[in-house]
């Protein structure tokens, strides 16, 4: 059974915790991966940008996979793609992207924070879902826009890069287009792991572009419907919380039992109050296998071929 931690970048008291080297070492030792939900335009407490917080953690951690949440509908896919690629370079292959659809009042709040802009979706469900799919497609295509061997440093031809190994992506969507190539060389994993958060009310079709799906604490019933996604994690609440859903009782036996839920490959433990719940939680978890390579390898995902290379050739 795989263990993930689900944190929110805006949670009060989180930054001092993560600044503690001992706590970070405990995360490295017990969790396969960590998600950092982003509080983009959340009223009252938007908190730090999760993608940047992830890069800060990435430079100080050693093992754990890091997936920052990104509200892709309200950002530039180009900047998101280079930001995650950079996280993969900083962590030498431990990066992922948590696609974070905003729900309820939040799309309208996010839209108010960036303004009504051409090229961005209207804040209603169908437009947001369509835009999410397009944003993921662009982010992924940009990761492949540099071949792994594009940098040649060839003194004979006096060329640093080989333009034949760089690719325009020429993406044309409903509302926007992106030409490419990326400005950032291909990340070490080729394709950092793409994950998405789903709640009970979401259309499971949104998970089509993802390799990892996190099912909210009330959405466990969706698991069997997600056969297309290789890995499904179910959320388990830790600590006092009014939220309904699966809840950890503090025992290892219960974790093992929850890990046998049909269609579930792992659990994401979500502490209600990290300052109170995180340290005891980490102390109770069994250690993970150390030094198992990139995040893709740890999760048993296949290597990511580059779409621009003809494998048959």
């Amino acid at each position, binding site marked *: 059974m795989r263990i993930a931690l689900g944190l929110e970048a*805006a949670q009060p008291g989180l*930054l001092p915790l993560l600044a503690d080297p001992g706590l970070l070492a405990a995360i490295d030792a017990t969790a396969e991966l960590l998600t950092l939900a982003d*509080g*983009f*335009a*959340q*009223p*009252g*407490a*938007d*908190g*730090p*940008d999760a993608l*940047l*917080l992830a*890069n*800060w*953690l*990435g*430079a100080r951690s050693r093992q754990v996979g890091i997936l920052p949440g990104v509200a892709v509908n*309200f*950002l*530039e896919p*180009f*900047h998101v793609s*280079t*930001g995650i*690629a*950079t996280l993969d*370079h*900083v962590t030498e292959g431990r990066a992922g992207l948590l696609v974070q659809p905003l729900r309820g009042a939040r799309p309208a*709040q996010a839209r*108010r*924070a*960036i*303004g*009504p*802009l*051409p*090229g961005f979706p209207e804040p209603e469900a169908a437009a947001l879902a369509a835009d999410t799919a397009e944003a993921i497609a662009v982010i992924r295509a940009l990761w492949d826009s*540099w071949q792994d061997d594009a*940098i040649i*440093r060839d003194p004979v031809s*006096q*060329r*640093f*890069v*080989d*333009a034949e190994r*760089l690719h325009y992506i020429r993406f044309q969507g409903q*509302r*926007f*287009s*992106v*030409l*490419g*190539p990326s*400005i*950032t*060389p291909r990340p070490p994993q080729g394709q950092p792991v793409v994950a998405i958060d789903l709640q009970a009310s979401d259309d499971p079709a949104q998970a089509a572009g993802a390799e990892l799906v996190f099912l909210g604490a009330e959405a466990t019933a969706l698991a069997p419907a997600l056969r297309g996604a290789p890995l499904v994690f179910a959320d388990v609440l830790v600590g006092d919380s009014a939220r309904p859903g699966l809840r950890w009782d503090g025992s290892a036996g219960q974790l093992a039992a929850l890990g046998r839920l049909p269609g579930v490959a792992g659990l994401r433990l979500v502490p209600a109050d990290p300052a109170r719940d995180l340290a005891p939680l980490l102390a109770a978890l069994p250690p993970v296998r150390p030094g198992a390579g990139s995040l893709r390898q740890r999760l048993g995902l296949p290597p990511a071929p580059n779409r621009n290379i003809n494998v048959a050739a």
Partner: protein
Amino acid sequence: MAKKQVILGAQFPGVNNFTVWSDPAAGSQIAFSSFRHFAETVERGKFDFIFLAEGLRLREQKGRLHELDVAGRPNTLAVLTALAAVTQHVGLVGTLTTTFNEPYPLARQLATLDLLSGGRAGWNFVTSPGAFTGANFRRGDHLPHAQRYERAREFVEAARQIWRGGDFAVLSRHFDIAGRSGLGPLPQGAPVLVQAGESDAGRELAASHADVIYSRHSELEAGRAFYADVKGRLARYGRRPDALKILPGANFALGDTEAEARDKAAQIRLQQVSPRSAITFLEQVWNRDLSAYDAEGPLPAIDPDVEADALSQGRAMRYDDRLATARKWREIAERDGLSIRQLVIRVTGRKQFTGTPQAVALEIERHVQEDAADGFVLAPHLTPGGFDEFVAKVVPVLQDRGVFRRDYAASTLRGHLWAA
């Protein structure tokens, strides 16, 4: 009177035509280990800040991706935030466009960098060429050229409101935004604002809104004139002359003797301008395919093409009067007997402090004491070890002369810049 203190910024040599990749000592420009080595070195040298340039589309020449110079860089804010985790004092300044960002997301990211670094964030706010760079962004070519500075000014004003924390609401020509920021007040109040004002409008914007000017006027006399001009503009915004620091960009070449340093400088220039790079550079001015010309031979007799669209895209450089530039360069080449490559080496050179560590330190100090600068943004020619020798040999001379800190006295970038 106490001597003026020298401010030193360290530009990471990545995607620039001064970065030499063909040298055996040249390492990766993308691996985090390179950034870490660079940052740790300049922090050991007590530099004020690290400086990253920006490029949001790969450069093109003759409709094709440019292959000769270093290409490929990380996301600026992401790598600076990663560096915040492995450094303690050095400032972290990124160049970020106001054209293809929006105020709330970018101000929030800069606030995050300031928070996670304990007050070391800086922002070189620039504008970007619309159609070329816009092809990579949702909004595309959305901004008329004439409005670029206006948007930049409104952008910075919106960012300042967001950095204060709490509710923000902006309704201006370019923005209609509102919300609430939970991050303010920030460790240093607001990230340090850097601007590369050149035109009259640019200088005015710097005088009204910036903390630092990154200037190209690095020679003593030109520097003094620029310095006096810009500092003279501050009073009308109610600012003291010291409120705006002027930092020209410069390169350096060190040797144990003057002769050795000169040889090294010449060698670096040859590495920076390969034969093909020389032809490519000339093509930017001539606006023609010159690939049939020999870089070691004379300049083309044919005139530049002033009718066609620009051959080169994605560079900061602009040559508005191609014919006059070509005429001037032919005169220089004929007078001094220069080949194409030698001419390009001559005309593309920028300020290069060349000499023994002692001489370079004295020259830097002289520019500062004579009000040609408040310091420099230095750019070495090698990644990642380009500052190793400078930190070991030049910094101690500056420290012994009492014009550069022996240790950090402050923890924020503002604290470093206004320490004295």
